[in-house]
């Protein structure tokens, strides 16, 4: 919905856009301004995340105690704002460094500001890193919407002894400049007040003349040339001229410039390039940066750099030539250990026990009330077990994301990507793919969700495709049972071999995907290494809440439905009569149908096929299914001989293990993949090809083994 439509719908209300660099504290500012009134969706037509929220007012909240002069002598309004203004919608634009047309995030941002005309653009700027941050500011000003610059992290600027002359900066830029600290909640009243003022009085920024000489002449000439087209399209001529100057292809197409006009523009620019000896995009970037250098020389006085050197000292250890990799591995091991080790397992088990106790309670109550058997079975084994299986993932997901958001907010995650980029690049990924890969050894669900930290959809999808090859924790009991039954004494060797085969398959798949599916458009790995900062509890908890509720909302439907379907399939026969045992149920019949498919792989029994099917529900079910179908207790000694009965030879057991290692992950993982890949089709294709690969590998191993006389 456009800002205009939004306004018409809600009467007197405003739309503010929040724009800024990555790492500028924009998310913190957004959370501060909107509280819990947030909505997460996608931008129309593209898969860039869009966050919107309703602004909460700060007039009665914390007052600004930032100790810096605010521009203008006007005292902050003590009276409340008119009632009709209470509705301000804030649209959080993606974190960007520029408004060039080479990334979805940048296109989405500029289109929103140009087309939807938000009442105010709040530009969040990292005041400790002004030179690069103001580069975006200058481009935002070109767009011509009422704009307020929020100088964030002013507490840090003050702490290191720098001073920024806000009055001078405001006079130079021609728009309000407000000192804030989003982390501490300082200066927000003033920011809101100034933004409201801009919106009420519709104050547009004046034109900034940032260029001189040949560049100025060229810009001026282009501006005159395209003015009619720009006006007709309702876009500011100044902005159009600047973008054409930079060779902006999408905008040229949008304006439907004639070949003649394009030609003249090109002539003007070619002449300028000759005169300046610099290519056109470089001229514009250089012009902006030179303007900023001059602005900063006028407005900023530097003190001793206390904070910066602390950050440098931390970094000299964390990215040290020798220490970096051991420290990194230790950190990752710790994250893994806390999430999946004793603490994580304890919480997960306790939580599962709690859920199970709840289910038992309900089951007992239903029995007491004399509810019909099939209804009880549906509610307990279908509905509640489904709910329970969704909930049982929660502790793991929350712990992992607690740790990951601490790493992300502290600035370490960028360093981890810096360290691991080289090896991962060989398989077509970048350094950021390491975390999802490693988490995959624990549980594919949070691993897939953690891929969201990657910048492009290509990288996310690519990483997610490889993650399931990391053998997840739920498969360990299967391996343990089989190694005991078939490889007494060689458990460690067999287990290690399986994990290694998984990794090797991921490398192989990566090489193939890089060659045939994801070639070309890898976004350049150009990443800011932000300063180390202490994460705030507020931000970490916020992210935890977002992840947790997101998982529940999205995954619930898929996992829940799948549980119901499986319950139905294993409880009824095809004539919809209650099935006396699993073999005669619909599930058993389907397993009987697909069993012949596995004859070439050496495990064509109905028991094995049923286990494969229930393994799609959850890998934990594989062992219990084999136990139930063999009529033995999974923990008993008879289990080993029962397994040997189902799998006639060691070779067929190996083949089965390889299939289990490589075939599609469970439905919970599939639900997460579908969500994070932003396409059910791609997710489905992924798990289908994984199953295909698993079948091929299992069959190849079995057949070759037989030829070698191992069967």
């Amino acid at each position, binding site marked *: 919905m456009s800002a205009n439509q939004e306004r018409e719908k809600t009467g007197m209300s405003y739309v503010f856009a929040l724009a800024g660099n990555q790492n500028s504290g924009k998310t913190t500012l957004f959370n501060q301004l909107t509280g819990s009134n947030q909505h997460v969706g996608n931008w129309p037509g593209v898969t860039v995340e869009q966050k919107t929220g309703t602004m909460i007012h700060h007039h009665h909240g914390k007052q600004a105690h930032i100790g810096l002069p605010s521009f203008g002598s006007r005292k902050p309004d003590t009276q409340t704002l008119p009632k009709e203004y209470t509705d301000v919608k804030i649209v959080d634009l993606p974190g960007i*460094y*520029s408004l*060039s047309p*080479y990334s979805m995030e940048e296109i989405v941002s500029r289109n929103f500001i140009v087309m939807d005309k938000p009442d105010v653009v709040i530009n969040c700027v990292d005041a400790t*890193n*002004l*030179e*690069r941050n103001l*580069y975006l500011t200058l481009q935002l000003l070109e767009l011509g919407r009422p704009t307020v610059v929020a100088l964030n992290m002013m507490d840090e600027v003050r702490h290191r002894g720098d001073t920024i002359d806000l009055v001078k900066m405001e006079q130079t830029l021609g728009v309000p400049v407000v000192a804030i600290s989003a982390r501490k909640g300082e200066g927000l009243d003033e920011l809101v007040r100034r933004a409201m003022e801009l919106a009420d009085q519709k104050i547009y920024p004046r034109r900034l003349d940032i260029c001189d000489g040949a560049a100025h002449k060229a810009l001026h000439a282009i501006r005159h040339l395209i003015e009619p087209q720009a006006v007709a399209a309702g876009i500011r001529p100044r902005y159009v001229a600047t973008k054409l100057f*930079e060779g902006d292809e999408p905008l040229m197409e949008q304006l439907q410039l004639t070949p003649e006009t394009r030609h003249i523009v090109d002539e003007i620019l070619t002449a300028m390039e000759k005169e300046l000896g*610099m*290519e056109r*995009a*470089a001229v514009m*970037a*250089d012009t902006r*940066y030179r303007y900023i250098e001059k602005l900063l020389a006028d407005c900023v006085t530097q003190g001793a750099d206390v904070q910066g050197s602390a950050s440098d000292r931390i970094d000299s250890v964390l*990215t*040290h*030539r*020798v220490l*970096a*990799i051991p420290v990194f591995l230790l950190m990752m091991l710790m994250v893994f250990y806390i999430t999946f080790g004793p603490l994580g397992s304890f919480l997960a088990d306790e939580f599962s026990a709690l859920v199970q106790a709840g289910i038992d309670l309900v089951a007992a109550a239903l029995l007491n009330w004399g509810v019909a058997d099939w209804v009880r079975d549906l509610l307990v084994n279908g509905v509640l077990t489904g709910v329970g299986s969704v909930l049982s993932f929660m502790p793991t997901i929350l712990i992992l994301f607690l740790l990951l958001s601490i790493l992300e907010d502290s600035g370490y995650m*960028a360093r981890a990507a*810096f*360290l691991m*980029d*080289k*090896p991962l*690049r060989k398989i077509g990924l970048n350094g950021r793919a390491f975390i999802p890969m490693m988490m995959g050894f624990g549980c594919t669900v949070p691993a897939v969700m953690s891929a969201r930290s990657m910048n492009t959809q290509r990288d996310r999808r690519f990483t997610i495709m490889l993650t399931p090859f990391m053998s997840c924790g739920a498969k360990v009991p299967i391996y343990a049972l089989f190694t005991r039954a078939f490889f007494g004494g060689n458990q460690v060797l067999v287990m290690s071999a399986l994990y290694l085969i998984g990794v090797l398959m991921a490398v192989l798949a990566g090489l193939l995907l890089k060659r045939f599916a994801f070639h070309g458009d890898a*976004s*350049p*790995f*150009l*990443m*800011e*290494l*932000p300063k180390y900062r202490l994460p705030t509890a507020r931000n970490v908890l916020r992210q935890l809440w977002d992840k947790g509720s997101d998982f529940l909302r999205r995954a619930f439907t898929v996992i829940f439905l799948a549980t119901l379907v499986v319950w139905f399939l294993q409880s009824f026969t095809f004539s919809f009569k209650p099935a006396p045992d699993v073999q005669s149920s619909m599930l058993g019949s389907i397993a009987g149908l697909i069993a012949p498919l596995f004859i070439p792989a050496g495990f064509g029994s109905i028991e094995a096929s049923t286990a494969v099917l229930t393994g799609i529900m959850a890998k934990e079910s594989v062992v219990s299914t084999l136990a139930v179908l063999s009529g033995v207790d999974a923990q008993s000694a008879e289990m080993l001989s029962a397994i040997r009965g189902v799998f006639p030879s060691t070779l067929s057991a190996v083949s089965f293990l390889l299939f289990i290692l490589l075939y599609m992950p469970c439905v919970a993982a599939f639900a997460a993949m579908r969500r994070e890949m932003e396409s059910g089709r791609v997710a489905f294709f992924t798990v289908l090809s994984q199953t295909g690969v698993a079948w091929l590998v299992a069959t190849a191993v079995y057949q070759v083994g037989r030829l070698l006389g191992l069967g």
Partner: protein
Amino acid sequence: MMTDANKKTLADLKPGDRAMVDTVGGNDALHRRLLDMGLTPGVSVLLQKTAPMGDPVEIHLRGYALTLRLDDARNIGVRL
């Protein structure tokens, strides 16, 4: 804009080297990204360090730290 073979690029710098950016090449998208991140002709950069495995590198410019791969750094001609 190609840099000729015997000219120094950002990828040739050693940790601790300071240099002035001379030319900025790369395909369209990379070229613009480099410029946007502040790697414009004339800017002074410090090669802070290389990653333990030799690639990528960390450079300091315009008051912040940026990491980029050697492959991309080769598109940036520098003067010592």
